[in-house]
């Protein structure tokens, strides 16, 4: 009897709406792709030779660094895409149609889940595109079928958590500018983690932060799966723990913010 019965169909309707928006406004998606691709090329071609020698020892060089940095760039892609979520949620909240949704007997949360699901689709498109560029410049993942499936699962979990967080950021933002700035730190977290250099090379206090912040386990899991060398259990546990915590926090904050007006 309640409108919650409609949570699923309403969410699908809202997802459709988001996908249409994405198709009609592809420049946002392209913009989100620019940064990770630029960083990929910069780090491989400019810093790659030197950094590769530092990481891989004698057998290092550019291609060793490409292997090392690709997972970090993929996580950076996710971070960049969820920044887009925050922007599009904030833009959507200024649209009159949101008030129309509020006066309709629909599952209210579907306005938000539509954004979350839409962003997840966008994230998969973006990560696939960036992976394609990495492969084009010589990256060769060693993942088996099971690894790929696990990677898709891991990305879905990470994307789900981070989009709820940035949906909350987008709703809370007073302006579209704020909405694009608030999630900015996410894009830099791979740097203060194991994305570009091993955390052991950092000073002690920073290493402590780097080892436990969400992006390091995310990157380590991705790296393990893509290289086919397996993943550490502690990284899997941290990935789940962080994702669940972030998703719960984001979901709760988003709902509270959306219902208050």
């Amino acid at each position, binding site marked *: 009897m309640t*409108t919650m019965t409609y949570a699923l169909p309403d969410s699908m309707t809202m997802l459709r709406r988001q996908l249409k928006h994405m198709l009609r406004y592809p420049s946002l998606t392209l913009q989100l792709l620019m940064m990770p691709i630029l960083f990929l090329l910069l780090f491989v071609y400019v810093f790659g030779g030197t950094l590769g020698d530092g990481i891989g020892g004698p057998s290092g060089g550019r291609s060793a660094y490409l292997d090392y940095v690709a997972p970090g760039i993929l996580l950076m892609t996710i971070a960049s895409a969820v920044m887009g979520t925050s922007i599009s949620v904030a833009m959507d909240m200024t649209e009159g149609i949101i008030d*129309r949704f509020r006066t309709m007997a629909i599952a209210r949360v579907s306005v938000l889940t539509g954004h979350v699901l839409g962003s997840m689709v966008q994230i998969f498109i973006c990560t696939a595109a960036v992976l394609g560029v990495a492969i084009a410049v010589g990256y060769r993942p060693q993942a088996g079928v099971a690894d790929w499936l696990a990677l898709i699962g891991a990305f879905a979990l990470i994307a789900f958590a981070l989009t709820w967080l940035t949906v909350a950021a987008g709703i809370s933002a007073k302006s579209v500018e704020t909405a694009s700035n608030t999630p900015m730190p996410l894009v830099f977290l791979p740097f203060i983690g194991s994305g570009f250099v091993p955390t052991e090379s950092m000073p002690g206090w920073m290493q402590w932060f780097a080892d436990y912040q969400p992006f390091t386990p995310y990157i380590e899991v991705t790296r393990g799966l893509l290289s086919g060398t397996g993943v550490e259990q502690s990284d899997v546990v941290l990935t789940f723990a962080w994702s669940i915590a972030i998703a719960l926090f984001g979901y709760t904050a988003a709902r509270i913010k959306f219902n208050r007006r």
Partner: protein
Amino acid sequence: MFDLGLLLTLYPPAKRGTMNTEPLAIEARNLRKSYGDDTVLDGIDIAVPRGGIYALLGPNGAGKTTTVNILSTLIDADGGEARIGGRDVSAEADRVREQIGVTGQFAAIDDLLTGTENLRLMGRLHHLDRSESRSRAERLLEEFDLVDAAARRPSTYSGGMRRRLDLAMSLMGDPRVIFLDEPTTGLDPRSRRTMWTIIRELAAEGVTIFLTTQYLEEADELADRIAVLDGGRIVAEGTADELKRLIPGGHLSLRLNRDDQIEAAAELLGATATDPEQLTVQVPGDGSVDSLRSLIERLDRASIEVDELTVHTPDLDDVFLALTERPENRKESVR
């Protein structure tokens, strides 16, 4: 015939539901809303029977949108209660939402979707089946003269077209009560008339309509009952005619030829104001042909020469000047 008074004593209002008496379509009692120190609604009552057209008339900032927002479950009132079709707007918000369609003051449409897609989105959210949704959308596009624009995005529409699409979207769910917040503000006279026709047709189908407007003329054209909102209170309520009788705003303005006749004319006609510089004399009157004829005859007999005669019918200015000048309606607090 039965005695309504007796009936009401036997079945007090609270029990009337069991008697098959329809609840009012819209009913609000003592609604209050403040933003900080700013009291926007200071206890207003509204009653609209099923199928009625009710107009809330008021100037900028009177609280019209606030009232619509409360009645349409968008915001909560601070006090009082409101029911739509007998359902409480805050306790049974979803039951209320099932009955209503809302066309807010500012277009509530998705600019990235086409006209058709906007309507189909509504169809999906009302959980209509595909064919029903499609045929309803087609019918509305046709009725609202949007067929040619259906495949375009609303950002390419004119103001009137956007308004019509907005209203069409509110109708996809076949609502029993419709809220229209300033449906014709910014429309040209032709579009305004089109909108009026649409509204009248909806009412004829038995839909209850609650509209807000800044134009007395619009309320006069459409509404069965008009309420004038000012300073957070309803300062007058009634049919258009009842309301006009309250408003002593109608007057005639005469511009004379000679300034030495102003006093004579003022005395003869019982003028309410004179302006010797402009040579004008203001006389109360409604501008009916009979009153004009007798006025001119009297002026002729007194040999008073008139250059120009203008009839002022009461407009919103007159309504507000008249209704808010009375001290009992003046706001106590001065911000």
